[in-house]
């Protein structure tokens, strides 16, 4: 069977070679990079612009961004027909292609996040490594821990006041440089689509900007969600402490911090959402107003075939409803959870409607293609480009985060307790 045939249903006049070649993994790709970029921008809001209220969130977002970073290129690799040749993109980059720069942009960004993390956690590494170094008869696990943290210090053990000040400066510079790079990483994902002149739905110079805005929205939403979950776990753990007095105090304390941080972050989420939605609507209005040759088929897709996906699921459930939820006074944690879940869903649907929606009509403008997402896999192709392939990509950063958070503790225990 031809690649793409199994999940494509053709209607009316479609060229014989046309199938939905870019499927769920290509929906996941901008979704995941969007989360990376968004999480990083959120963390930079504190480091660069000194928005103090986001301090707690900043550290968290940076570590999470690092975990997401590893998952971001996975969808592309999985979607390749020859995944093992993926390295060719770096070996013989053909720079007229938008995808060719991926390696460079990705690794530059990775280097920035990694070095910022290093400066942020350098003190912690030294604090772990030094006592272990001095300790006699280490156990095997202590040896491993010592080797790991010793390596992570990169041989720098200076944690004097001045050195730490310099670290802070470095973090500020890196976060500052990181914002444009993060925006570039994702705007560039938008460019991959926006520059395809053969595709009437994708081709717009607004695409990179729309992608950046929705990326920041999704990144903030995911950080809020993960932050709440982590805080709830901490609350649960602290409630199991021995003395009842201690239990009460620390639990309330955590809750207070949590609501404050969440309310503050929600504000920024709303700002970026307004930007994102305005741009998307501008694009839609402009297409309708100029009504070039492709508009007939686009209109039938946007207002007809994909109406539910675009207007009900994306704009209604994914944008309008969370918007109202966040704007209603007295934001609670529960309402936030519902809100951010809807926001994440909305951004996912936006990616879906761009990637799948862009292939919902034929290049002939006289036919349609419908995408049937493979759910039960019966071979490698239907697994990796099916529901379970997408889900494994989505779960990956959370698992990575769990491991990475062991090395980079996300909460400074001294401060909050």
């Amino acid at each position, binding site marked *: *069977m*031809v*690649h*793409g*045939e199994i999940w494509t*249903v*053709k*209607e*009316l*006049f*479609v*060229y*014989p*070679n*046309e*199938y939905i*070649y*870019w499927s769920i993994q290509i929906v996941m790709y901008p979704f995941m990079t969007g989360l990376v970029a968004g999480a990083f921008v959120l963390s930079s809001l504190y480091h660069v612009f000194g928005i103090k209220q986001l301090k707690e969130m900043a550290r968290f977002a940076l570590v999470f961004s690092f975990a997401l970073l590893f998952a971001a290129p996975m969808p*592309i690799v999985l*979607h*390749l*027909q*020859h995944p093992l*040749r*993926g390295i*060719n*993109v770096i*070996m*013989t*980059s*053909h720079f*007229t*292609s*938008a*995808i*060719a720069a*991926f390696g460079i942009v990705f690794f530059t960004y990775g280097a920035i996040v990694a070095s910022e993390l290093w400066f942020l956690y350098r003190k912690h590494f030294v604090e772990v490594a030094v006592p272990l170094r001095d300790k006699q008869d280490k156990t095997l696990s202590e040896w491993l821990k010592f080797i790991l943290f010793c390596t992570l210090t990169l041989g720098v053990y200076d944690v004097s006041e001045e050195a730490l000040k310099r670290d802070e400066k470095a973090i500020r510079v890196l976060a500052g440089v990181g914002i444009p790079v993060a925006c570039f990483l994702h705007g560039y994902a938008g460019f*991959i689509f926006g*520059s*395809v*002149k*053969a*595709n009437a739905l994708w081709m717009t110079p607004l695409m990179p900007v729309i992608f950046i805005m929705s990326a920041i929205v999704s990144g903030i939403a995911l950080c809020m969600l993960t932050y709440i979950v982590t805080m709830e776990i901490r609350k649960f753990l602290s409630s199991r402490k021995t003395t009842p007095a201690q239990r009460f105090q620390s639990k309330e304390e955590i809750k207070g911090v949590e609501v404050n941080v969440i309310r503050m972050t929600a504000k920024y989420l709303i700002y970026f959402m307004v930007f994102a939605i305005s741009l998307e609507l501008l694009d839609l209005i402009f297409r309708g107003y100029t009504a070039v*040759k492709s508009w007939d088929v686009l209109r039938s897709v946007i207002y007809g075939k994909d109406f539910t996906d675009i207007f009900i699921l994306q704009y209604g459930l994914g944008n309008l409803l969370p918007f109202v939820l966040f704007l209603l006074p007295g934001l609670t944690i529960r309402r936030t959870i519902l809100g951010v879940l809807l926001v994440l869903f909305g951004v996912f649907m936006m990616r879906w409607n761009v990637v799948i929606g862009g292939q919902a009509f*034929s*290049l*002939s*403008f*006289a*036919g349609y293609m419908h995408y049937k997402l493979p759910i039960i896999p019966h071979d490698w192709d239907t697994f990796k480009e099916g529901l379970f392939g997408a889900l494994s990509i989505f779960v990956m950063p959370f698992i990575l985060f769990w491991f990475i958070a062991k090395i980079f503790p996300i909460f400074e225990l001294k401060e909050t307790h």
Partner: protein
Amino acid sequence: MNRRDFLKNTVKVIGGLSLPLAAFKIITPKEIFASTGDKAKTRWVFLVDTYKCVGCGMCVKACKLENEIPYDANVTRTWVERYVMTKDGKTFADTPKGARDGFTTSKIDLGEGKFQDIKKDFIDKAFFVPKLCNQCENPPCVQVCPVGATYQTDDGIVLVDRTWCIGCGYCIMGCPYGVRFFHPVYHTAEKCNFCYHRISKGLKTACVQACPFGARQIGNIKDPNDPVTKVILTERVGILKEEYGTKPQVYYVGLDREVK
């Protein structure tokens, strides 16, 4: 030497070295060929006379066999489209299996297993249009390939390197004509290459040879005596989807505005 001197000297050395290096101009092999005057004497073009096409599908069959595209796979390097315009101003088009077996029924294939029967008296006009790769002068598929696995030869043909293609599908997305697909066996991008293995040996393409009515012709536009060149230069010919700026090199005689 202290650090200050070291840095100073480093700057001096780098500066001194880069000046004479800048005097050398980087010359690409293409520029050398251009300056020596041995320009490519061939630019392959294709001419389709839609008046002559009867939709028998011999070209599609020949192409599939010649280029080893699995016979029953629903992809093809070349195909034939049927257009039917009815008296109420509607246009119907189809290409069942790329017209590999010709058009065996007058019913129009609407996809999803549905067919539309159109009464003969109700038809204003009907015709067939063969399609193949346009070997564009400005090929978007070559532009978007991230690894350079697809490239244009000096005589204008766009080829794919099956050993280097990563199968990302960007070229398939980039082609406005929908001629590209994934080869069902090699899992790399696949397209019509005007039977490059044949034309470079002086043979005709498989489809040109198989066409019983001479609807398909291949020629060299740089040769003024080539019959194809003469038609293109002296008669009224059309090209497909000019608005994309790809400068396609497949010319059509009798192209209708309804051709998609």
